[in-house]
């Protein structure tokens, strides 16, 4: 198979908005290509751990150097297109129009298993020559796929879910099985593909893999109609969702993003390995304040995630805890088909056994989540409001009679999040977006009043509808005071309601505060800039919650 087929697939997937069409396209593709190329295709499309061989910046600079093209011109084009790989592809159309070199076809496998890995081993000059040669000898239809693979930016609106569905249809097998087979690492090989499309289900095949996670839906009012006794209530912690898996004595920590994070949390691996039973537990990993028995802010967790092998002092400074809320497997027996209320009973039973019988004390790093028992829905609401006090995001509501399925199935788990904090702020800067927002001003900065000055306090880019984005883009172009590179400073005139989850002191920002997950929730056309909030109001919010 040549790379052409894959490039065609890319075009086909890109030329349809219908999920069913995409599934058909993928099915046909898988049927007509070699397992090894299919394997690489799945690797690329699911985007699990696509390696970036060179950066977008590098690619742009290289083009400039090779073709003696002004860098500022490439950068201007980039602002319009929003993707380095695509900009270079479009510019190559101009350069290779009179292509004279012999066209050289390669396969997807050749590209990914040979050409690109070799690239990393070459010195700078040779590396540049190789890329240049590829540009000159690959058929033009392959330039975009080549550049995108090179820069590790392969996104085609194909989710893991879509791949799962296509393969399930291809071999006529339950989606859940494929979904499970796709969990964890995917190392492209003939075997990996054949394992995926094997019609026979071998129970042990999935030993090293986590279960597909069950995800919570946003709360809906209609459950008020049901009895409160049908539900289990838990705090919604703001940490990392993980499955702790111990099978045949080996312990692994899998995140919801399907990353194995054993190395980042060695103390948890060590302690939980001491438990005598095998198990799969679903829960939340947090940095914990042991003195007050509350979760620490997510920013502390960030200090742990990105560190492979943390030192003892880091472990001490940011102590972690795993709070389990579900038992999915015990000593090789899958518990997911059992009702939640019964899974909970087993979880509690085994937890107390482990606490008493495990050699080293495990309770300083592992506990099970406390349940909350609101009397009625009004009471549940008051619990939700309390959640800021214990640094949680709200409540998780789970149907007691539910089984553990995969994905965001309706009617099983709900997240009942505490109302966001809000401030009305003035739009002062805008920056061009990238990717699908290229060519539009979609990254905004907002300010609050301090005396008579507007001080930037947050940046946000989500929350507006496409129509609003276009309207605002037009306004931005007509109300620019100044330009610095891609950033425009704007006439202070537009007021927006900004919602966010957390507010804390920050020395890095001029405003002295930092907010988490800021987003636009309303375009306040009814407000003038003098109606916008002041920084003092932001400080007040901070005091209210601390």
């Amino acid at each position, binding site marked *: 198979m040549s790379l052409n087929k894959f490039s065609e697939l890319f075009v086909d997937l*890109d*030329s*349809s*908005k*219908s999920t069913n069409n995409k599934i058909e396209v993928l099915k046909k593709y898988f049927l007509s290509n070699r397992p090894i190329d299919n394997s690489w295709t799945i690797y690329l499309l699911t985007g699990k751990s696509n390696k970036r061989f060179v950066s977008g910046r590098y690619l742009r600079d290289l083009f400039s150097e090779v073709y003696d093209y*002004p860098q*500022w*011109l490439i950068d*201007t*084009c980039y602002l*319009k*297109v*929003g*993707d380095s790989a*695509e*900009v270079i592809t*479009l*510019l190559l*159309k*101009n350069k290779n*129009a009179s292509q004279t070199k012999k066209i050289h076809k390669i396969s997807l496998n050749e590209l990914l298993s040979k050409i690109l890995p070799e690239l990393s081993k070459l010195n700078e000059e040779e590396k540049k020559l190789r890329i240049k040669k590829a540009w000159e000898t690959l058929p033009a239809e392959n330039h975009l796929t080549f550049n995108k693979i090179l820069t590790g930016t392969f996104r085609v*609106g194909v989710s893991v879910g879509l791949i799962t569905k296509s393969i399930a249809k291809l071999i006529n097998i339950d989606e859940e099985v494929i979904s499970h087979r796709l969990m964890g690492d995917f190392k492209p090989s003939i075997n990996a593909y054949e394992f995926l499309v094997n019609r026979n289900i071998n129970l042990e095949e999935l030993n090293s893999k986590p279960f597909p996670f069950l995800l919570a839906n946003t709360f809906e009012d209609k459950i008020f109609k049901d009895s409160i006794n049908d539900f289990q209530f838990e705090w919604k912690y703001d940490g990392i969702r993980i499955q702790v898996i111990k099978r045949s004595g080996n312990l692994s920590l899998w995140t919801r993003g399907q990353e194995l994070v054993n190395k980042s949390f060695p103390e948890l691996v060590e302690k939980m390995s001491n438990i005598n039973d095998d198990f799969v537990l679903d829960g939340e990993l947090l940095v914990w304040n042991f003195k007050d028995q509350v979760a620490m802010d997510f920013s502390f967790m960030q200090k742990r995630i990105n560190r492979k092998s943390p030192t003892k002092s880091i472990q001490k400074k940011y102590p972690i805890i795993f709070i389990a809320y579900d038992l999915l497997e015990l000593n090789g027996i899958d518990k997911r088909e059992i009702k939640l209320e019964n899974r909970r009973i087993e979880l509690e039973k085994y937890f107390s056994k482990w606490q008493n019988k495990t050699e080293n004390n495990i309770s300083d790093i592992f506990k099970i989540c406390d349940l909350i028992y609101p009397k009625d829905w009004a009471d549940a609401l008051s619990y939700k409001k309390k959640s800021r006090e214990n640094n949680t995001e709200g409540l998780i509501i789970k149907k007691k009679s539910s089984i553990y399925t995969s994905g965001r199935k309706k009617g099983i788990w709900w997240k009942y999040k505490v109302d966001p904090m809000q401030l009305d702020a003035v739009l002062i800067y805008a920056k061009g977006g990238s*990717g*699908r*927002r*290229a*060519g539009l001003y979609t990254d905004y900065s907002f300010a609050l009043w301090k005396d008579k000055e507007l001080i930037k306090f947050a940046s946000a880019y989500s929350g507006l509808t*496409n129509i609003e984005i276009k309207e605002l883009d037009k306004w931005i172009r007509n109300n620019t005071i100044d330009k610095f590179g891609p950033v425009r400073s704007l006439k202070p005139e537009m007021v927006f309601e900004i919602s966010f989850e957390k507010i804390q002191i920050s020395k890095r920002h001029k405003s002295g505060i930092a907010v988490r997950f800021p987003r636009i929730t309303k375009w306040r056309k009814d407000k003038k800039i003098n109606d916008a909030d002041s920084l003092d109001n932001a400080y007040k919010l901070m005091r209210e919650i601390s």
Partner: protein
Amino acid sequence: MRTKEENLIKYKDGNLYCELADIWIDPSKPVKRALITHAHFDHFTFGCEEYLSTKETAILIKKRVGDNVNIKPFDYGEEFKVNGINISFHPSGHILGSSQIRFIFAGEKWLITGDYKLQKDETCKKYEIVKTDYLISECTFGLPIFKWDKTKNIAIDISNWITNSPDKTSLLFCYSLGKAQRLLNEISKTNFEGNIYTHGSIHKMNDCYRQLGICIKDTIKIENKKKIDQLKGNLILLPPSLSKGSYLKNFKNIQTAFASGWMSIRALRNRSGYDKGFAISDHADWDGILEVVKKSEAKNVFFHHGDSEALSKYLSEKESINVLFFEK
């Protein structure tokens, strides 16, 4: 009298204007006298006392808005005088009747390109190279990322797009004047054998083209909604204004596409809401603009209709062309 420093053509209230002749070019509001480069509605506005255009443009405008407009038609190349200034229309290759406008005064030549393209298009006259001292060029696609494929290849892509989905009705959206006729002309040269239906607005323009001696493939006017089941595997051309709203509910099992130069950028394609985009344009691409600047032999160049920053900088730095900016 005009002082030497003052330009013959300038920018006034967002429009090109020649003060000496008291004449506007494609004005966006009613004025006494207007030169019209072509019959697209973003270049024509109601309420001017007098319009001047090519014969074809005059006919197309009347067909679109009725006879109640005072248009003086001219042949391509025919010179006429307004306040001592020689003015003439020259083919710009954008659509049928489209023109560049040349002004000559006191031995000084000015050329306004209007919208133009250099690519092949059998439904209108080819762009004519006109030598000038001052050039005012459009630059809608003034970035090097814009490089048009051969029209023939796009037509083949369109034909394949339809025939590869035989169970679907293919809706191709395009401007009803110019683009639609060009597409019909090109598609008729491919292997596509299905029926082509057109919306009333396109049908009307097709007739007009035929009257003016342009050969346009026969199409079926789409009006009867009952026919819908027979439409699969066939092509329907529709104006972009119908792509949003309830009109599409008349069809079942469709695939949609938009034919426009902007469709060469993936982000714009995805954002457009159409399934597919065909990058075919009636404007010049980057190379086209550079070629016109060069061949016009203009010493001084202005740009309008587009983001001209990059183009201006490139021409000044790389080609040592004197790029000027209008005072606004």
